[in-house]
């Protein structure tokens, strides 16, 4: 195999896979990428056995073939090399020559046949959405997922495509908080699909979405979820098991409404949390007519008090929230105003972007 590529497009292609390639993997082949030139053009592939990515690369092909190249090293070389064009050539015994300008590198590759096979992605049904919508929907839910939770299904995002409602609902929860974002399904599916996308894959899918202005296709296969855009295909394994019935934790009868400016509330919670006790990290929220006061106290440090003007006309109410969780969700939200739907100090709060029915979060109250 021998090909010449522009430094710029190679660098862009290598950036896409950097998050997936494992530099410290115990299986050395996984720190490599596969560069292939054949009938279907030139592609770069990488995988960590959980996520696999294949993307096209525009190249002048002198001879076809495949080479397994250390991905991080190639990225570092291409980033530093001082030339608009780079030539990559595979030699005997998996040696790889990389030349550009006056630079000449010779890297040790691995046999191409040892590279994991690209999973079969034929046969699944697909939906399409704007890349910015996918990015938004992941952004608004990913923070709420579990991290290393023993209940594996919580360590990912539920993608629930329901043809009968015509909606795609994406859910993240760690049991203390819940985030639910939805969008119209832009395609008709023959059946309901419920899959759990691992955290890392969701984060990579968001990166992919952020790198393009085009529509992204999401295909539901039996064992994996496939995101494709601009010729790039990203496949993720799915988490086994069923997702908890999250609808149970959504309170149905919260009657009290508090509306405030999002950035003001966010600032107040952040400041109030500064003196909070690290472990419990609870902030207290006292609401009375027209005023919300976030406060915390720490016997070893002192107190903080942060009043914010809000729209509220119900009876006075006091609740406690995990400060980190409150900050996370206010940060993930867009829009100028947020509305909190409350009942009493034991009932979870629902928080919405005011006027947006496609997104809400549920926060479990904490003891104050």
């Amino acid at each position, binding site marked *: 195999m021998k090909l010449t590529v522009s430094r710029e497009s190679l660098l862009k292609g290598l950036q896409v896979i950097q998050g997936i390639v494992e530099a410290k993997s115990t*299986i050395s*082949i996984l720190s490599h990428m596969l560069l292939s030139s054949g009938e279907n053009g030139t592609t770069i592939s990488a*995988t960590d*056995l*959980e996520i*696999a990515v294949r993307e096209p690369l525009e190249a002048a092909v002198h001879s076809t073939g495949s080479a397994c190249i250390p991905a991080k090293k190639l990225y570092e070389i291409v980033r530093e090399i001082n030339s608009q064009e780079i030539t990559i050539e595979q030699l005997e015994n998996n040696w790889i020559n990389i030349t550009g300008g006056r630079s000449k590198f010779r890297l040790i590759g691995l046999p191409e*046949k*040892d*590279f*994991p*096979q690209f*999973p*079969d992605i034929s046969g699944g049904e697909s939906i399409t959405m704007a890349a910015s919508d996918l990015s938004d929907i992941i952004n608004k839910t990913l923070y709420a997922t579990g991290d290393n939770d*023993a209940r*594996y299904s919580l360590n990912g995002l539920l993608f629930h495509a329901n043809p009968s409602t015509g909606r795609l609902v994406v859910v993240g929860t760690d049991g203390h908080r819940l985030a639910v974002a939805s969008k119209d399904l832009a395609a008709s599916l023959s059946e309901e699909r419920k899959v759990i996308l*691992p955290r890392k894959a969701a984060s990579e899918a968001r990166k992919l979405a952020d790198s393009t202005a085009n529509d992204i296709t999401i295909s539901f296969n*039996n*064992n*994996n979820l496939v995101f494709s855009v601009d010729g790039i295909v990203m496949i993720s*394994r*799915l*988490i*086994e*098991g069923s997702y908890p019935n999250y609808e149970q934790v959504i309170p149905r009868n919260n009657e009290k409404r508090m509306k405030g400016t999002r950035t003001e509330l966010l600032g107040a919670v952040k400041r109030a949390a500064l003196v909070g006790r690290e472990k419990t990290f609870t902030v207290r929220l006292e609401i009375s007519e027209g005023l919300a006061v976030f406060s915390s106290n720490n016997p070893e440090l002192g107190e903080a008090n942060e009043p914010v003007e809000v729209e509220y006309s119900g009876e006075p109410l006091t609740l406690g929230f995990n400060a980190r969780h409150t900050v996370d969700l206010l940060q993930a939200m867009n829009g100028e105003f947020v509305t909190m739907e409350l009942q009493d100090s034991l009932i979870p709060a629902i928080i919405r972007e005011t006027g947006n029915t496609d997104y809400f979060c549920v926060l479990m109250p904490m003891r104050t």
Partner: protein
Amino acid sequence: MPLASIIGQDRTIALLRGILRRNIAAHCYLFSGEGGIGKTQAAHEFAKALLCREIPDDACGVCANCERIDAGIHPDVRTIGGEERQIKIDEIRAIDESLGKKAFEGGRKVVVVRQADTMNSAAANAFLKTLEEPPPESVIILVSSRPELLPDTIRSRAQNVRFYPVPRGEIVRMLEPEFRGEADIRSRLASGRASLAVDPELLKRRDEFLDGLRRAVRGEAEADQIWGGREEIDLWMDQAIAWLRDIVAWQASGSSALLVNADREREIQAAASRSNIKAVSSLLSEIYRVKELLRFNLNKQITFQYILMRLAPVLR
């Protein structure tokens, strides 16, 4: 080397192939039996056979799945354990997390745990949780020559697949065509381990052991020249035990019929006449005990010196 080529375990292999043929694999198996009789290899081949694309009840060895499992790069097959240390909880967590996802390629997910009895207690607890709720489409194969060291709670959740030492007569029959003149001595030295019986290095290794032992007693060789890894130590211990048992057997019966090292009859006779049966027997049980203790990180150098000191009177 597919399942069909594993020597001397015909009934066990037939059982495994039946499971494959009828596609009724359980979530967890425990391959148990003495060391060196083919359990680890059988576990590896069984893992391949579960995913082989060509043969329903064995591993073809050449399809993409078989090849990648051999190379250790199949995304849905993981092997842990079998190294010279305990299996730690992180490894079990990684396995658990991987099994918690659907197979990358749509088939089964297989995990092989070599020397499963080397799990530390935290790892065993974590592993028990996995077994209590086995992820769908997953097969876990535990391999152990010391299954009694595994917690009951784990053993009771695994289907036991026993491997047996092969009777000597059977090994002789198997050896006869290829190793004509050596069939008898090889069958003795292999003591039930068919894979060992056909090992080309078998006799050479035994000779090296005896030679090394002599040099060590004379202070011409150190522990680390003779004792490499855990497997080497185990092998060395087995050979030392066989040697001492031969001496006891000679002292008790005065005949060569029961000897493992039957081709070294004269040396055994000489050693037997130098010491009494009681001393050698107690030395033998001491070596058994040290072999046991070696599982718990005894200092190699000190242990080796100690054994030599005890062996010296018998060997000199």
